[in-house]
């Protein structure tokens, strides 16, 4: 019988940057092999290796599968270790192995960092490119739409005027003269409104749109705009109501611009709603103290994709949104809200109506000026 040489695995661990700790079922350290880092016998292994906190269930499994390649205790020590757990079948005990991985980590960390930084830069570039492309497309669309919007009423003006001019040769019946003059007048008003909107928008875009603030009563403004919108030609058969909240605060804002916001939203709603629909204006003081004015209709609503386009100047993807005003309305409302540091928000769903709300910040309200 030849003698089997005894071999103590511990020799292998001498000087190696690895420590093995044997723990009992309460996770108390019973034995430590290797001296690369301090693990105290008799103490809970989770005190030195907090990564094991929460893993108790996994550790009590027959075959625990705990392998964490890079773990470092934050704060001061950055020393990364690899943690793995093995069960010794003879003694039924658990061995926790900690291995120093600082060398691998320093290389890997640089790689991960470079990879992440590059992907982030790449994503940013892609987003910038997309934004530039969309902006470019929006501009082309804008120009096409502006010309279209200007042409339609201009044609009415020119057509009407040239008929009236021919009266020299062949006088028209009085009624026709009145009809043509009315058309010319209305188209002129439309053009003026369009040009005013364009000026506002370009001022807003260049940061030159100023607001003239004063203390005003939102209720009075809303009331006025609701009455005005009832008089719009498309408003026939549509119920437009204002449901005032008990405590509408005084607001520090530009009343002319607040009116513009409301009238834009109301006339947009009126244009898409069919007779029998209902449009209501609601007010609410939010928990945050902000004051929210909502114009809600039960009209056709729109899809999220179309909503995004509708918010662009002249961004009208199809007939569904096309009908909404001159196409500048929402873009201007958003800018005007912004000038008041108000949050403009639209919630809508295709077929389920639309609610456009403007939330004026609490600091603009009388109750908060104490």
């Amino acid at each position, binding site marked *: 019988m030849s003698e089997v040489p005894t071999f103590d695995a511990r020799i292998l661990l001498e000087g190696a940057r690895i420590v093995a700790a044997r723990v009992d079922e309460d996770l108390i350290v019973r034995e430590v092999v290797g001296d690369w880092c301090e693990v105290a016998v008799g103490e809970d292994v989770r005190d030195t290796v*907090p990564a094991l906190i929460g893993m108790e269930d996994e550790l009590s499994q027959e075959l625990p599968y705990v392998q964490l390649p890079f*773990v470092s205790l934050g*704060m001061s020590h950055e020393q990364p270790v690899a943690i793995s757990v093995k069960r010794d079948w003879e003694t039924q005990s658990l061995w926790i192995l900690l291995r120093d991985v600082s060398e691998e*980590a320093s290389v890997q960390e640089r790689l991960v960092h470079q990879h992440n930084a590059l992907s*982030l830069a790449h994503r940013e570039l892609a987003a910038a490119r997309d934004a530039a492309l969309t902006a470019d497309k929006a501009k082309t669309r804008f120009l096409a739409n502006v010309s279209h919007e200007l042409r339609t009423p201009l044609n009415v003006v020119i057509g009407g005027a040239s008929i009236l001019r021919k009266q020299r040769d062949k006088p028209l019946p009085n009624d026709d003269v009145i009809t043509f003059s009315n058309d010319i007048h209305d188209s002129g008003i439309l053009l003026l409104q369009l040009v005013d909107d364009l000026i506002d928008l370009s001022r807003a875009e260049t940061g030159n749109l100023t607001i003239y603030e004063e203390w005003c009563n939102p209720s009075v403004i809303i009331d006025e705009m609701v009455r005005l919108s009832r008089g719009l030609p498309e408003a026939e058969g549509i119920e437009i109501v204002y449901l005032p909240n008990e405590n509408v605060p005084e607001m520090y804002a530009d009343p002319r611009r607040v009116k513009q916001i409301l009238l834009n939203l109301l006339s947009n709603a009126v244009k898409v709603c069919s007779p029998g629909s209902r449009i209501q204006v609601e007010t609410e003081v939010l928990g945050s103290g902000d004051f929210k004015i909502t114009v809600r209709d039960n009209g056709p609503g729109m899809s999220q994709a179309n909503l995004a386009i509708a918010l662009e100047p002249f961004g009208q993807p199809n007939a569904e949104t096309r009908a909404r005003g001159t196409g500048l309305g929402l873009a201007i409302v958003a800018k005007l809200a912004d000038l008041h540091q108000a949050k403009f928000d639209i919630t809508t769903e295709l077929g389920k109506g639309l609610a456009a709300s403007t939330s004026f910040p609490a600091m603009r309200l009388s109750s908060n000026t104490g």
Partner: protein
Amino acid sequence: MKAHKVIVIGDFGVGKTSLIRRYVLDVFSDQYRATLGVHLYKHSDVIPVNGTEQQIKLVLWDIEGAPLPGEQMMRYSLGASGAIVVGDLTRPDMIEPMRRAADMIEARLPGRPIGFAFNKYDIAPAPNDSDIAALKDRYGALITCTSAKTGDAVPTLFRNLTSLILGKKTGAL
């Protein structure tokens, strides 16, 4: 006292490390240094529970970022009592990856509370109400807009999640 493991996950560069370092050490750096593997932070805090102040201990897992949860993230999430899913408000498509991370948590750690942190609130606006409502509906989750830079809502985020974790505990007893 039992310590709770809380994992912080999300895409890289969204501010996971920054949020934890703001909460634990009250510091912030503009420099980006990617996290490799996981960094652990031990932290004690005092939070109100049923009207009394209660001392709590957390082990926060700052996990290497990835656009979508993978094998590694799942392995690290083992045994967590709760999770914080971080998104970056400056990124246009931040919500979908957050949903995917939350789905992973739901599958791996059923019933554990999830907190959504919409970070970098100092430089970008909050998500719109309908997105928030959809997340709440789906995950019954805690949703907070945070800024690791200014510290805005950072302790609140961690404390509210911890309250939920403790709530779950007592609820189960």
